[in-house]
């Protein structure tokens, strides 16, 4: 088991290295001079030269890459062109807000996403099934920010239950944090929930046709027990794969949601960096998000052993 985990961890190294190369090359795949774009329309020749120097674009490519990589390995993501601070500084300040929000979506989504859906699977064409699936497909079709604005309109404007925008750290005030995070968490969770609901339903329908489910019913187990212990547990492998891959959706959603709710997280940082074409920050954010994504999916791969004892490492 441990040997397997270590093997898998090592196997992610080439993937991450390739991601790093991609992210590095992004700056060089540009059809025009990145320094000119970063400098803006009104930059003088001198300013462009300065930026080119700052980015190290005057060196030969391999030198630039080794330089960038050695900095990266030491945890140095470069210097923000806009603020002049190391990229890791705004990162850390922002990361707090972000992980809080992410963690909440997880808590939020997983309860409604799972066992209840089993029931909907059983009565395959029941009206609840139709209603839930229509809702799920719809959750898929509405852009995250429209959901966000609708929730602000309903929850803050009409009902006055939640603040419109802003963010309070959980360290400063727990109720303040909860009231600020509820709407963004619901917003971001909607798409994710739709995704997981669809997958859960499809796999459950598959599993419910299996012989062991019939056997479980035949020996007189309660429906709930059959659904949760026998069917859902067997359906968990594909479902957790979806949960892992869906994180990419969450990451994209975070970027948009945080700008709707004015939350100072990594997503907001990304948007600001895009607007200022602050390339080192963009590169840093992509790297951080991608590595998190890869590691999360690795964790999920390893978790399969919990659901399926036939999988041995």
């Amino acid at each position, binding site marked *: 088991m441990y040997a397997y985990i270590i093997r898998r961890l090592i196997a992610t190294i080439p993937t991450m290295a390739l*991601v790093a190369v991609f992210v590095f090359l*992004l700056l060089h795949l540009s059809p025009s001079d990145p320094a000119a774009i970063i400098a803006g329309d009104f930059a003088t020749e001198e300013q462009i030269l300065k930026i080119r120097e700052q980015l190290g674009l005057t060196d030969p490519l391999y030198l630039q890459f080794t330089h960038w990589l050695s900095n990266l390995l030491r945890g140095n993501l470069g210097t923000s062109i806009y603020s002049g601070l190391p990229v890791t500084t705004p990162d850390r300040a922002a990361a707090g807000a972000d992980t809080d929000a992410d963690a909440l979506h997880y808590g939020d989504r997983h309860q409604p996403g799972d066992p209840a859906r089993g029931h909907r699977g059983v009565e395959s064409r029941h009206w609840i099934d139709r209603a839930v699936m229509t809702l799920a497909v719809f959750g898929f079709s509405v852009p995250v920010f429209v959901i966000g*604005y609708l929730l602000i309109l309903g929850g803050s404007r009409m009902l006055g239950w939640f603040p419109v925008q802003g963010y309070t750290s959980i360290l400063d005030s727990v109720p303040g944090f909860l009231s600020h995070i509820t709407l963004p968490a619901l917003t971001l969770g909607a798409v994710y929930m739709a995704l997981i609901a669809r997958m859960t339903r499809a796999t459950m329908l598959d599993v419910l046709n299996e012989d062991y489910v019939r056997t479980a019913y035949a020996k007189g187990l309660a429906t709930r027990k059959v659904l949760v212990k026998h069917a859902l547990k067997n359906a968990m492998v594909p479902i957790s794969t979806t949960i892992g891959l869906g994180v990419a959706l969450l990451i*994209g959603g975070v970027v948009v949601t945080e700008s709707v709710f004015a939350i100072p997280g990594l997503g907001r940082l*990304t948007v600001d960096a895009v607007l200022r074409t602050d390339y080192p920050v*963009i590169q840093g954010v992509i790297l951080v998000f991608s590595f998190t994504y890869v590691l999360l999916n690795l964790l999920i791969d390893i978790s399969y052993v919990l659901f399926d004892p036939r999988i041995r490492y």
Partner: protein
Amino acid sequence: MQQSPRDRLQAPSAAALFGTDMYGRDLFSRVLHGGQVSLVVGLSVAALSTVFGLTIGLVSGFMRRIDAVIMRLMDALMSIPSILLAIALVALWGSSVPNVILALTIPEIPRVVRLVRSVVLMLRDQLYVQAAIACGTSTPRILVRHILPNTIPPLIVQATYICAQAVIFEAYLSFVGAGTPPEIPSWGNIMAEGRMFFFQSVGIILYPGAFLALTVFAINTFGDGLRDSLDPRMQRRV
């Protein structure tokens, strides 16, 4: 399309079906015009990523030697969350409709490649393909005549989903300021521009939002229907 500052943020009326935006432009005609741009983006992304993905997938699935290299590259590309990659690309290339299309296409390619490759791997050991190899048929001919037709049904389904997703992602890109340029209305950037005025005039986000949602919903449902009719195993599911 004409700006008329005096009529800005008007409520819906007979003259302006959805009311007007913050520059007094008719929201209805902007939404219709935006639909054109959003659909062009969606369809082009679907078409381009299918063509590229199909080509790479066919080659990768059939030629063992370069397969490993291509798949590692695709894995790496897939581990960058697609919206982030698209945002970064547009931020670098500058905002224009072709750039948005290209930036949304690149992250989709690996997903198509995986799909095509899995079909190719399954077919490669089929008797009729083995027979074709034994007859000395050239590799490109085998790929095109014997394998390509079998990849089409799942690809069409995948393409509809990509199209739906691209319409949404275009809106995300516009929303964070890395989408279509302001002078070309798309559903995304109408909403992005209007968000400051949301509380004065809810329709500025709701109307394009509703159009977008219905369109994506329709494309997704179409995709589901296609899948059910093209793949008998998947019938009466999701």
